[in-house]
């Protein structure tokens, strides 16, 4: 694993990478986000967990504007998310996202999946994109699959390609939306290993996941969502050993057996 290709991280910067203030969102009449306040520092790894329907996925999708928030303020790397399409484009190119269902482009090879956005959005040359693409595929452990199509890969391999594809844009922030929920059990660890390596390299990460082993080992902070609100947050040691809130205790008891 090389660290040549790391995105630039201003370690000395004290400005938070993501600032969310009083973020509200409605789906029709349904109030799904009810005043979310969250700051994420550079190089911080934040794990978001909570029951399904608690708004955690919707929340991280507002950060790169896949969902629009209707009240409050979201500032990413100093740029505020507004309706201005240039702001949205600028922020999206700084944020990589990994989805539960991979969402690889099935008509393109693995390498083409990884090269597409750098060439079309960043306007890199083919050679440069291919060079970086191969480095990233090596980093996620599947350089030999570069010329296959996604359908020929296992779920775990597909998700690792998706991570490489997001990293190819050299983002400052990575969002993970339940990256292991669609995987067979034996493939979960290969994806978590890549995420752990990424966290150790200093990437700012926001992960929606129920992998509590990963959270305990890697997260700097855990955030518990319930019913569209942040009920509790703190370092993993506090969340696991001394949860403050009744609903947090109940939820942890359910998923930790």
């Amino acid at each position: 694993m090389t660290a040549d290709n790391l995105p630039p991280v201003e370690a000395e910067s004290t400005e938070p990478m993501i600032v969310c203030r009083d973020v509200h969102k409605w789906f029709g009449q349904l109030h799904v986000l009810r005043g979310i306040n969250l700051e994420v520092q550079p190089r911080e790894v934040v794990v978001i967990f909570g029951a399904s329907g608690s708004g955690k996925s919707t929340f991280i999708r507002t950060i790169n504007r896949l969902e629009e928030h209707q009240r409050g303020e979201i500032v990413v790397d100093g740029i505020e998310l507004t309706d201005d399409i240039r702001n949205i484009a600028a922020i999206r190119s700084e944020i990589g996202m990994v989805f539960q269902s991979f969402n690889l482009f099935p008509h393109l090879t693995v390498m083409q999946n990884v090269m597409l956005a750098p060439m079309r959005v960043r306007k890199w040359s083919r050679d440069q994109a291919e060079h970086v693409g191969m480095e990233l595929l090596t980093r996620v452990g599947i350089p030999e699959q570069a010329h296959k199509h996604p359908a020929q890969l296992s779920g775990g391999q597909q998700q690792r390609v998706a991570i490489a594809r997001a990293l190819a844009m050299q983002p400052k922030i990575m969002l993970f939306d339940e990256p292991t929920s669609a995987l067979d059990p034996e493939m979960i660890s290969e994806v978590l290993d890549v995420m752990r390596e990424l966290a150790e390299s200093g990437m700012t990460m926001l992960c929606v996941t129920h992998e509590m082993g990963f959270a305990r080992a890697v997260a700097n902070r855990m955030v518990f969502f319930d019913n569209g609100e942040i009920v509790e947050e703190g370092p993993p040691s506090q969340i696991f050993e001394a949860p403050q809130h009744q609903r947090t205790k109940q939820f942890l008891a359910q998923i930790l057996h």
Partner: protein
Amino acid sequence: MTAETLPPPSTSIGPAAWLRRNLFSSIGSSVATVVILALVAYLAVTVGGWAIGEARWAVVTSNLRLFLIGQYPVEQAWRLWLELALLSVLAGVSGGVYGQTTRTLAVSLSAMQLLLAVLMVASPLGPIIIGGLLANALAVWGAYALGRAFAVPRTPLLIAWVLSIPVSFALIGGIGFGPLPTVQSSVWGGLLLTMLLAVVGILLAFPLGVLLALGRRSSLPAARVLSTAYIELVRGVPLITLLFMADIMLPLLLPGEWRIDRVARAMGGITLFSAAYVAENVRGGLQAIPSGQYEAAHALGLNGFQTNLFIVLPQALRSVIPANVGLFISLLKDTTLVTIVGLLEILGIGRAILAQPESLGANLEVYVFVAGVFFVLCYAMSQASYRLERAMGVGSR
């Protein structure tokens, strides 16, 4: 535990077993097999007997030039050969360079020329036409070998294709001086006109239809309403109505000094008609693209145009190849309708020939010949479609 590989029992393989399983598996199926075989044999004997014995193919062979190019002046016919050679070489080189999909085009073109050559065997013009067709079919493969062997640069090849469109019209219609005097479109006819109408119709209707489909799904209300209105209006009228309107009403609506060529009007009518159907096919393909594809593209920073161009359309268009080829096959056959606005494509030429006293009683021969030509063209298109699906289906499942 032994796991040696045993051959299957002899009763389950071989021709006898195949016959028993597929044709004589029960009394009912045996009866059906015998009856159907008898029917097929009867048809083959009567039709074949007619085609070889009674049919007077002279009506076709002596009018072959009319069938192929209509009233196109014979001393200018070399331009059509040149045009065919140009397309053959371009298709061959592209097939060699790009492989897969474009190779299908080259294969179809040479196969169509070979099949047409077979149809020409009995004609007095036969030797010239067969020779020309064979030479062209060979040119496809010669060019293919060239494209394979040498690193032909792709951009000039693409430019050559784009240039081939005005060059084709200059060759066929002329530029009015020098070696290419004008040949009025009123004398274009026969298979030449059929192919021109079909190829131009397909080449124009396809991009227009894709734009209409995107427009119909656009978030801009104006684009959505206009596209929807256009599609529904055009699908609500028969092609004949559109052709009449293009032929009769357009000149009335336009200022008197504007004269649009009659063939161009027919091409316009066919294009506008087919585009609406292409749009609905493509819309079906667009709807099948999961929203995750759009989300992934947006999350990577691709804009709406790039998302459509690189992610959505390649997948959507691939999934509607069969529907679109079906549409283009009916477009090819619908070109026969231009007869009613006075253009003589191959079927119209056939009817004109039948109106001459010397072809009295040869109706069947003429119609069978025209049907045969259409069958060859349509069958080539549907075969090309299967190959296209297979070539583009790599890794899709």
